[in-house]
């Protein structure tokens, strides 16, 4: 169990030992994003842009035209909102190999509150042509994605969580772009199929464990690649489902839920879809446990929502 941002700093530092294309452009947040690890090990390949995210993106783009594969170090909100025009124009349009290491994504950002809660990033980033959008479940998958990205010839948005979550994968895990990962089959005809992404998958694993112990059959699919999607592979897990639940630490607008909705609608599935995520509203500051409980993403609250779908929730 290790925080994904720390995994990023460590893995990139190691990769840069043998890959001289790797540089980091930071927006004065290196001690938060853990780019500081890279800066200490490779100071000659660390560019400080200061608190100026738009220029940070422009610098990274310019460097990419000379063969570098720059990683941007900032909070998700600043990359996907403050610098969106620059990402759209210079990175997405030109297919520049710039990597957006979005730290502090989702609801849990160390009590910084709603201004820093990056809960619409998947929606915004997946709308950009050429952008690969990744949301790792845990430290192992984050590391696998960072290694995968090293040789990817285009832009990547990597959604990293601030705080560690319980491990989902063991060290043998291999990341495959676009492919869904079946975590639990739930038999041939599960009563409900749950699709989750990012670190919310870790909490969803625990939620489903409590439900299955009650004798219900649940399928659980983790979708680490929001874009590009291997739709046929995802459909293999959804075909025949009567109830599908999506779970994400993201707004219910435009994220995983809508990715899955489009697949179900496109295949004329008759399944009912329940989207579990953050309501279309602003959240607040607070400790992680408080926020997860209040905004419906704790293990217990997710289990409740799935039980609702199964029609067996007992009133508290």
């Amino acid at each position, binding site marked *: 169990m290790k925080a994904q941002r720390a995994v990023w700093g460590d893995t990139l530092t190691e990769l840069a030992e043998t890959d001289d294309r790797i*540089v980091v452009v930071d927006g004065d947040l290196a001690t938060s994003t853990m780019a500081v690890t890279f800066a200490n090990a490779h100071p*000659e*390949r660390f*560019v400080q*842009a*200061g608190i*100026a995210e*738009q*220029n940070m*993106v*422009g*610098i*990274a*783009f*310019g*460097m*990419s*035209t*000379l*063969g*570098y594969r720059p990683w941007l170090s900032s909070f998700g909100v600043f990359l996907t909102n403050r610098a969106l*025009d*620059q990402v*759209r*124009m*210079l990175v997405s*349009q*030109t*297919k520049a190999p710039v990597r957006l290491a979005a730290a502090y994504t989702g609801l849990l950002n160390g009590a910084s509150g709603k201004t820093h809660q990056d809960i619409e990033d998947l929606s915004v980033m997946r709308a950009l042509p050429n952008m690969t959008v990744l949301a790792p479940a845990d430290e192992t998958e984050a590391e696998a994605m960072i290694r995968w990205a090293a040789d990817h010839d285009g832009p990547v948005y990597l959604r990293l969580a601030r705080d560690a979550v319980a491990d989902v994968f063991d060290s043998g895990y291999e990341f495959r772009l676009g492919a869904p990962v079946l975590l639990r089959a739930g038999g041939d005809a599960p009563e409900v199929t749950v699709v989750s992404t990012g670190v919310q998958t870790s909490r969803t694993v625990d939620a489903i464990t409590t439900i299955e112990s009650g004798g219900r059959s649940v399928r659980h699919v983790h979708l680490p690649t929001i874009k590009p999607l291997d739709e046929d592979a995802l459909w293999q897990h959804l075909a025949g489902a009567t109830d599908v639940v999506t779970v994400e630490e993201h707004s219910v607008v435009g994220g995983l839920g809508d990715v899955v909705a489009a697949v179900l609608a496109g295949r004329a599935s008759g399944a009912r879809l329940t989207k579990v995520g953050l309501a279309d509203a602003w959240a607040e500051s607070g400790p992680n446990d408080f926020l997860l409980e209040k905004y419906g993403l704790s293990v217990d609250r997710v289990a409740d929502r799935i039980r609702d779908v199964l029609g067996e929730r007992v009133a508290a």
Partner: protein
Amino acid sequence: MTRNDARDVEHLETVAREGRWRVLETVATSKAGHIGGPMSAMDLMVALYFHQLRIDPSTPQDPDRDRFILSKGHSAIGLYSVLALRGYFPVEELATFDHGDSRLQGHPDMKLTPGVDSSTGSLGQGLSAGSGMAIAAKMQGKDFHTWVVLGDGEIEEGMVWETVIHAPRYGLDNLTAIIDLNGLQQYGWPAGEHDRYDRSEPMGHVNLPAVFRGFGWNVIEINGHDYDEILDAYAEVDAARGTTGKPTAIIAHTVKGNGVSFTRATFKWHNGVPTDEQLDTARAELLIDQKTEALA
């Protein structure tokens, strides 16, 4: 890669007249495009492409070439005209500007057009992109220079000033910003007296040389239509490359729509399509029928 060290102002002026003609002719053909901005920046770009830049149109991706970014991307047809005359693609291709399936998009696209070093279009981004190229050049020990043309309306964009603050900190004496100070923008400011509004001088209230110097830039102020002044400024920048630790801002006083009587110094030709009669006037004023020498 070569640069043309001989100073032949008469030739540059001939090329610039041809460039301005191609702008008007192309916009008339395409029935869309900007005119005032391309014509105010024309002499600055001709002096770069036909004198200053170390480039070879036959190898537009040479890693050691000087870079040029037209940050005010809506003046694309000005850049395309210069690139075509310089030999990056056939002059006849200008007729496809803004048409479907053309390599010559409404704003510069580095993936489509030979010789375009950065896509631009959303204003304010080019200097930042250029600073990234300049930083990377220093990291790789390359001695090419990166030149960026910005409009005076464009530098109202906040992002420009992020780069202005940042570039001196990285000692980017291999980066030059050329401000095309033509004094007019599309709509302008509600000021009262003139016409509906006073469209003049986006930066009229700003002491630009003092501002750039204050941020740690080297500043040169020139008449952006006087080739001796332009070439002197470029030579000064080139000579100082790698020695001053400071980026340079060339503040070029220009006239929007310069070179043709009816487009000169009026916001009305920010964009617009000339009539046949106007084209005849421009053709005569630009001495197009008298040109005899090879241009490139």
